[in-house]
């Protein structure tokens, strides 16, 4: 049957890592293609002419762009290890929180790394993450006993990205004081047997963040 799966990605991107996590959780083999964002290949531009961004999943020659769209595609195509719940209401809730993370949390967190009005940015980010923590309640993962759709979309928060950026920039957002449950969840996340093999190399990430966000000499 020749199943051909390719992924155009960047080693440090939480967006393309989401797709990798999903593929790995489902045991799907794929060809990884590292993209140079400063020098995008013709192939990438052909597969994602609208946004010219990663990640792009190419399945048997057909491209899909936008990480959350790709996650749903992966879940519908490879049935092992379901990412979304079966129940329509639970699915709607998962999609709601994924959207909340993508459209509200991510931009707010990126603002905290910027230099404008940082105090206000941190306050807003903490408020948003508090809502996420309330949604988590006492569950091990957003997906329940197992990692799911929302956990993967929250990879920036659960993985090392947020922790390392906040340390380098010198802000306190995700702390055990502020967000104890979310911190506990993030520990579960990075220690998950599949996730821990699929996070970017931490020292490389820290070095990158230092260059990008660290204090200038």
């Amino acid at each position, binding site marked *: 049957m020749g199943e051909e799966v390719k992924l155009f990605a960047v080693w440090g991107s939480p967006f393309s890592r989401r797709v990798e996590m999903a593929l790995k959780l489902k045991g799907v083999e794929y060809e990884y293609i590292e993209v140079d964002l400063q020098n995008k290949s013709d192939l990438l531009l052909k597969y994602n002419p609208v946004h010219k961004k990663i990640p792009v999943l190419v399945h048997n020659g057909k491209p899909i762009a936008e990480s959350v769209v*790709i996650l749903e595609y992966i879940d519908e195509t490879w049935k092992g290890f379901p990412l979304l719940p079966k129940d329509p209401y639970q699915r709607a809730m998962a999609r709601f929180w994924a959207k909340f993370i993508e459209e509200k949390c991510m931009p707010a967190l990126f603002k905290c790394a910027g230099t404008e009005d940082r105090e206000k940015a941190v306050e807003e980010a903490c408020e948003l993450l508090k809502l996420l923590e309330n949604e988590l309640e006492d569950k091990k993962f957003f997906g329940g006993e197992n990692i799911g759709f929302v956990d993967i979309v929250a990879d920036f928060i659960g993985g090392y990205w947020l922790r390392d950026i906040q340390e380098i920039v010198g802000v306190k957002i995700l702390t055990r004081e502020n967000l104890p449950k979310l911190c506990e969840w993030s520990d579960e996340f990075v220690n998950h047997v599949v996730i821990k093999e699929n996070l970017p190399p931490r020292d490389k990430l820290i070095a990158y963040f230092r260059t990008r966000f660290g204090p200038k000499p």
Partner: protein
Amino acid sequence: MAKSDVKLIGAWPSPFVLRARIALNVKSVEYEFLQETLGSKSELLLKSNPVHKKIPVLLHHDKPICESLIIVEYIDEVWASGPSILPSDPYERAIARFWASYVDEKWFPAMKSIAVAQDDEARKAAVVQVAEGLALLEEAFQKISKGKSFFGGDHIGYLDIAFGGFLGWLRVTEGTGGIKLLNETKTPGLLKWADDFAAHPAVKDVLPDIGKLAEFSKVIVAKMRAAAAAPAK
């Protein structure tokens, strides 16, 4: 299913609310429409959507579902025996979701820019952006519809609903600005699609009256322009 089992909190001018109404109509679901008044938010809305405090909110057996496209997917999954809204093939579903996301994240913000443009130059630039977006959507329509009337083929589907929700606003923008955003030369497919969509039985009774919407838009645009012109806090 009793009508009171399904309620929709919304308002007639909202393109997002319209999406939910069309989806419910496609499935012939009876529902109670709870209209919000502009300028105030009901207790029920605030309780049902505490995170965003926005419409639409679908209440199904009193359980709230928020975000218009999430509501549309929910409707498709719950009333599975009715006509399908999303395509059945996973790749086609991904394409539909991709373009719906494009409409919400790129195209509609460009549309809003036309309304809040502070001067002629800004307005012209916004119109160019919207037109470029429509060219992309036209190309997508030609590919996806495969010669049929709708993105969904013979029947209206997810992308028809996602994009079609904005049809009223598109027409109002054309009228106010004296511009033909959908036209025979650049967007022949979408031009015809718009008429077919507006005439569809699931759409025609809930699509807002353009005259009424134009009047309403004056109020909304004034608010948007005031907010856009306000000095940064």
